[in-house]
């Protein structure tokens, strides 16, 4: 608690004790009034002062003013205890609210505790600790074990395991070595790293993420706008009702029914109205829920860029997935080998040696499958045959590696392979040796991710890809996606998404998931653009509404579930708070609810709504 809150707490305790004492004592008349004024002023003097100021500034529907009227009214009617109690509980409610909010502010910002405090900059005089803001691009910084990487850069010395959990929610460490790019916000777990910075601090990943999260709640959702509009009319409406309640029934009694006016009773009921007129519970719990939800999602490596996107995400009905980089790794790998001589190791060895000097992605995948560094001594002349492959001398044996054409031209008969993928044939010493099948690898969990989407009730999953239709169909089959469009150029993808958008119903939203590299226009076209594995890619972070920081496709369904939980809490709070207030107003008008009940309802609803809102923070197992 801060100083201000502690002071209020002391006043609450003093006033509560005095009030209880005074209500037990058998006091009468003026003395009773004067004594009750002590706790009343102790607890309410600031409210009364603010109310007076409000009147001077013509702010009639100010909460302080209403509380002042309600309690002064109660005291005039002789209900001293109630007058003091209403003020007391109002203050308790305010204190709880401000405490709960400062607590959740703290807990959310500590979740996103990424901000580095300093950077160790290498200077001619040795290592100097500097404010990250003062470090220039191209400076050399040193990151010791246990420290946060303060600024994005490239490792120039050392190797280490980095903990990226704060950025991605992923707990497995990432190993980096010389030449690797490192992102700010990661924690160096074991080695000493020297990094050449490639960005200024304010453009580094960590600054951008912090900015996104902090500003996310500025993009207000429709429910928030609804509530602030509602609050604007609610208070005046309740006040007008209160005035009518105080005046009309007594007048009716006098004029029409010819009986006693009963002014006291009706004024008391009107004052009860004023107690319930503060819209605080609603107004506070909605943004708090979004704030907690966005904070909780951030901890899971899901950045939701605004409360409005949270709302749309919860209504997702169609998910359009990009293939490469989203459902597949976007890197080639040897997935199958066929050896005519049934010696696969030798097959891969010869293929890898022949492709040793090639930088082509397919060559890299073959070398990766071999797994050992090339022995350059065993490689003789290598000749590239454009569009076909390579021929090389390996251990003085002539080797051919390439496509079918290369084989037939050498007078060999390659085995046929029906798989819709890239096939590389190998001939060793003039004899056909076999082939390697090379394909883009499915991400682990990609099929589960699609299942998850179906389980949470996403009606339609569509996959788009630039690859040819046969490959696309095969991947879609493995994933369990029935609707797939292959052979699309980036602009075709845009058209396709436009087509789906125009054919869907208005209530369900379309989410597009891509890696953000060349699909930025599609990301912004769709209702919700989700960029995957976008950590460090500025363009993707810019274009997307939701950023998945690692590239786990299971996070797609998770982000929808988080959004739904958050929206569920928002609606619970709206209905609950409106419901209880509505009931209290009716009961108050009928004289069933007195001022005590009204203030308990008011403060109680707020406390419950705030506690419920904080639940949105816990999304680990949604």
């Amino acid at each position, binding site marked *: 608690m801060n100083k201000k809150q502690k002071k209020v707490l002391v006043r609450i305790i003093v006033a509560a004790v005095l009030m209880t004492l005074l209500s037990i004592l058998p006091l009468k008349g003026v003395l009773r009034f004067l004594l009750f004024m002590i706790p009343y002023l102790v607890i309410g003097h600031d409210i009364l002062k603010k109310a007076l100021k409000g009147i001077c*500034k013509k702010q009639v529907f100010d909460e302080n003013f209403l509380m002042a009227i309600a309690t002064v009214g109660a005291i005039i009617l002789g209900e001293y205890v109630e007058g003091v109690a209403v003020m007391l509980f109002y203050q308790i409610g*305010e204190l709880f609210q401000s405490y709960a909010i400062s607590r959740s502010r703290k807990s959310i910002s500590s979740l996103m505790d990424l901000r580095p405090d300093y950077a160790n900059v290498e200077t001619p005089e040795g290592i100097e600790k500097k404010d990250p803001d003062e470090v220039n691009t191209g400076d050399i910084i040193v990151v010791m074990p246990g420290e946060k990487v303060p600024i994005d850069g490239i490792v120039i010395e050392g190797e280490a395991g980095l903990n990226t959990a704060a950025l991605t929610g992923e707990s497995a460490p990432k190993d980096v070595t010389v030449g690797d790019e490192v992102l700010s916000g990661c924690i160096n777990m074991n080695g000493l790293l020297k990094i050449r910075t490639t960005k200024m601090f304010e453009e580094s990943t960590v600054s951008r993420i912090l900015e996104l999260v*902090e500003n996310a709640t*500025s993009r207000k959702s429709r429910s928030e706008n609804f509530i602030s509009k509602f609050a604007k009319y609610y208070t005046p409406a309740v006040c007008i009702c209160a005035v009518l309640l105080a005046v009309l029934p007594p007048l009716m009694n006098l004029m029409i029914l010819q009986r006693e006016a009963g002014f006291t009773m009706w004024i008391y009921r009107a004052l009860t109205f004023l107690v319930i007129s503060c819209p*605080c519970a609603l*107004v506070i719990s909605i943004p708090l829920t979004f704030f907690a939800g966005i904070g909780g999602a951030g901890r899971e490596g899901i950045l939701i860029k605004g409360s409005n996107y949270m709302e749309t995400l919860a209504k997702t009905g169609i998910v359009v997935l990009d293939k490469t980089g989203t459902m597949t790794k976007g890197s080639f790998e040897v997935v199958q080998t066929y050896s005519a001589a049934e010696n696969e190791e030798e097959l891969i060895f010869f293929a890898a040696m022949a492709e040793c000097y090639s930088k082509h992605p397919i060559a890299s995948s073959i070398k990766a499958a071999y797994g050992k560094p090339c022995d350059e001594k065993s490689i003789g002349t290598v000749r590239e045959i454009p569009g076909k492959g390579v021929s090389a001398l390996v251990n003085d044996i002539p080797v051919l590696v390439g496509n079918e054409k290369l084989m037939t031209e050498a007078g060999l008969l390659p085995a046929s392979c029906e798989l819709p993928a890239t096939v590389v044939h190998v001939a060793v010493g003039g004899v056909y040796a076999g082939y390697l099948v090379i394909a883009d690898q499915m991400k682990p969990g990609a099929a589960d991710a699609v299942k998850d989407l179906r389980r949470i009730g996403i009606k339609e999953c569509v996959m788009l890809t630039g690859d040819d239709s046969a490959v696309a169909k095969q991947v879609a089959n493995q994933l369990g996606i029935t609707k797939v469009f292959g052979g699309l150029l980036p602009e075709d993808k845009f058209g396709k998404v436009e087509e789906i958008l125009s054919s869907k119903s208005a209530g369900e939203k379309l989410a597009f998931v891509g890696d953000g590299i060349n699909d930025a226009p599609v990301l912004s076209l769709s209702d919700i653009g989700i960029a995957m594995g976008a950590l460090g890619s500025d363009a993707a972070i810019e274009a997307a509404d939701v950023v998945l920081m690692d590239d786990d496709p299971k996070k797609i369904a998770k982000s929808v579930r988080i959004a739904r939980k958050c929206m569920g809490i928002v609606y619970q709070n709206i209905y609950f708070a409106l419901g209880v207030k509505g009931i209290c107003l009716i009961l108050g008008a009928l004289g069933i609810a007195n001022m005590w009940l009204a203030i308990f309802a008011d403060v109680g609803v707020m406390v419950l709504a705030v506690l419920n809102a904080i639940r949105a923070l816990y999304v680990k197992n949604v």
Partner: protein
Amino acid sequence: MKKTYKIEVDCANCANKMEEAAKKTAGVKDAVVNFMALKMSVEFEEGALPETVMKEVLKNCKVVEDDCEIYF
């Protein structure tokens, strides 16, 4: 031009009122108060001087909520 300022305010409804008041100030094109982050971002009209406009914004905010502060 858009600028973000740190603010001090106690209740969420007051933050809404401040937003309303800021929006109505001359020279302000749009204003958003983020109660959770305690920030106000103000988009100024073409040619308006942020310093002078913000003084007015603060004055208008003080009318609706006495207990508020904007740091600029």
